């Protein structure tokens, strides 16, 4: 952990161990996201999904580990456009996410938003933003609100490595620190801003260093290891809540697919580069751990995957059958 003016200590007392149920829940959610994206990409190719599709495959441990540590009754999420996985991890029904992708009125955004614009205030999920960095100041605003509300809620804001190149990132971190806001800024560093590698878009190779000028703790975490993400999040969230001060996290990870569905990553990166990341695949890492600790057998994990897939296929089918919005809904929600 690199620190500036403050640091977040690891508590001396050992943390209680995770329960087996919790590990299995996280594994199941990571598998759910992976399979969801797989089905979604198929439906894009079938023509049911249009426009943009940004897969979260490969990055599952970041969202799953972090959101497992949330206080779901008080905390909120502001996300960027790579949002399907975070929706699922926040407890939004996959059927509603599919329905949004299929442009159905039963979708989380009633078919108005599509892939990049999922919103579910009930589940404390405040979008889904298509403008790089667009959510970062909004998250600071959510932090301003939470500070004035009971319950010590915090806001987790997700964005990519590319968002560090926007002015609003730097302005928002300054505001959040100046005003003591309970916001966790999470940079999901998947090494690429579309086709541009970190070395080609960032003046510094350690992104924590680009966030360290704002007087808030910064920490780089292993985004492939869901346990590590969870532990760090639990510790950091407690400190942010307690101190009512922001924090910046850089989660190191990798996206398996192209930037979006039309993108061909092998035009700008190599399979040799991909290989070590795939060896540390987040689902594989946790599966191996659970097998080694005899918490699950490979057969049980495979069974879990099959259950998840069957469940998702059923949900996708119900979403397919759902109605499109009616023509008169075009003007609904332009204004109150």
């Amino acid at each position, binding site marked *: 952990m690199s620190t500036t003016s403050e640091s977040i200590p690891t508590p001396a007392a050992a943390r209680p161990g995770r329960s087996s149920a919790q590990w299995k829940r996280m594994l199941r959610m990571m598998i759910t996201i992976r399979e969801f994206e797989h089905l979604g990409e198929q439906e894009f190719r079938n023509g049911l999904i249009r*426009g*943009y599709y940004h897969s979260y495959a490969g990055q599952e441990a970041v969202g799953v580990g972090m959101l497992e540590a949330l206080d779901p009754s008080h905390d909120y999420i502001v996300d960027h456009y790579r949002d399907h996985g975070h929706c699922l991890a926040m407890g939004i029904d996959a059927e509603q996410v599919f329905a949004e992708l299929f442009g159905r009125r039963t979708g989380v955004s009633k*078919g*108005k*938003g599509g892939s990049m*614009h999922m919103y579910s205030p009930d589940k404390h999920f405040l979008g889904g933003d298509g403008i790089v960095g667009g959510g970062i100041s909004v998250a600071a605003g959510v932090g301003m609100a939470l500070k004035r509300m009971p319950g010590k809620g915090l806001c987790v804001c997700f964005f990519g490595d590319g968002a560090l190149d926007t002015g609003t990132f730097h302005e928002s971190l300054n505001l959040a620190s100046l005003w003591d806001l309970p916001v966790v800024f999470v940079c999901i560093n998947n090494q690429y801003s*579309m086709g541009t590698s970190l070395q*080609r878009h960032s003046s510094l190779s350690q992104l924590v260093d680009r966030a360290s000028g704002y007087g808030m703790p910064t920490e780089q975490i292993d985004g492939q290891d869901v346990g590590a993400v969870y532990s760090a999040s639990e510790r950091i969230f407690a400190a942010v809540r307690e101190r009512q001060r922001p924090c910046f996290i850089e989660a190191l990870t990798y996206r398996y697919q192209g930037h979006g569905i039309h993108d061909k990553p092998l035009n700008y990166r190599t399979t040799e580069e991909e290989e070590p990341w795939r060896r540390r695949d987040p689902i594989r890492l946790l599966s191996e751990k659970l097998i080694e600790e005899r918490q699950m057998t490979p057969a049980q994990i495979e069974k879990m995957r099959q259950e998840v897939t069957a469940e998702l296929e059923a949900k996708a089918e119900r979403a397919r059958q759902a109605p499109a919005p009616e023509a008169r809904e*075009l003007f609904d929600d332009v204004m109150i």
Partner: protein
Amino acid sequence: MATTAPAMKTKKMSMHEALNQALREELSRDEKVVILGEEVGLYNGVHYVTRGLYQEFGKDRVIDTPISEESFVGVGVGMAIMGFRPVVEMMRMDFSLRAMDQIYNHMAKIHYMSGGHLKVPMVLRGPEGPGPNPGLTAQHGQQLTALFAHCPGLRVVTPATQHDAKGMLKAAIRSDDPVVFLEPGPLNNKQGEVGEGEYLVPLDRADTKREGGDITLIGYGASVALCLQAARELEHDGLSAAVIDMRCLRPLDMQPALASVAKTGRALIVEYAWQSYGPGAEIVARLMQDAFWDLDAPVGRVSGKETPLPYAANLEELSKPQLDEIVAKAKEIAAA
């Protein structure tokens, strides 16, 4: 008379290929021309406009930028006042909203504020509106034409044909004014005849696409094709419609439209943009001022619906100007 019918040898190509030719020819002709933008280089351009240029002209002429729109538009301004001719790409014109301070307060004003001492010979270009692909949704498929056309100091043009796209982009690069070059997104991949080799299309001349005696259909960008389609349909009803392409929006060339309305006495404006306060509204105002006594019926308008671009396929389609709406409205005006 139609001015664009090229008397030269032509070749069929897409609009992005025509724009690519223009850039290639101007990069070769003038070493002061440079390109800046996200994914314009190594990635070959998200909409293919800069394809191959990085390989041909190198990284100092075709410059990949981080996601820092406000600042790289500012870099364009700075290079321009030093005598370079930057062509700055917005991956989608929606992202220019990030750069609006540089566009409105610097690019548009430095020439005037400096008492004419400084020139800003730069081009800001990129696709706008709902295309080429469907499903772009609210933050990626907007048609922001009016924002640019509103601002004194900018020259604002939008080609409706592949041939104009090439000739106008070349003229824009050679212009000593700052030019906002709006590429109609829906036309990006559409094919048409393009003149071979060197030619320029002026940046201050609207174009008569078709003569007619009963009604004047006025469009710009992607709506010109709709006007032409509507004109063909109207023939079946025994109506002869003229079609004017307003391709130069600031300064706005009203001459061909006024000349046509003097004959037809009736006008219908068709645009993808939102109606209120848009270019169509300005065109109506000019017709009121300068063609009032020629008009036999109120001027009509068919525009994009005044909603953010919705995702669901049926709503997205409804949000665009529809051919049957145009034909019906034209008949109504003709019968008035």
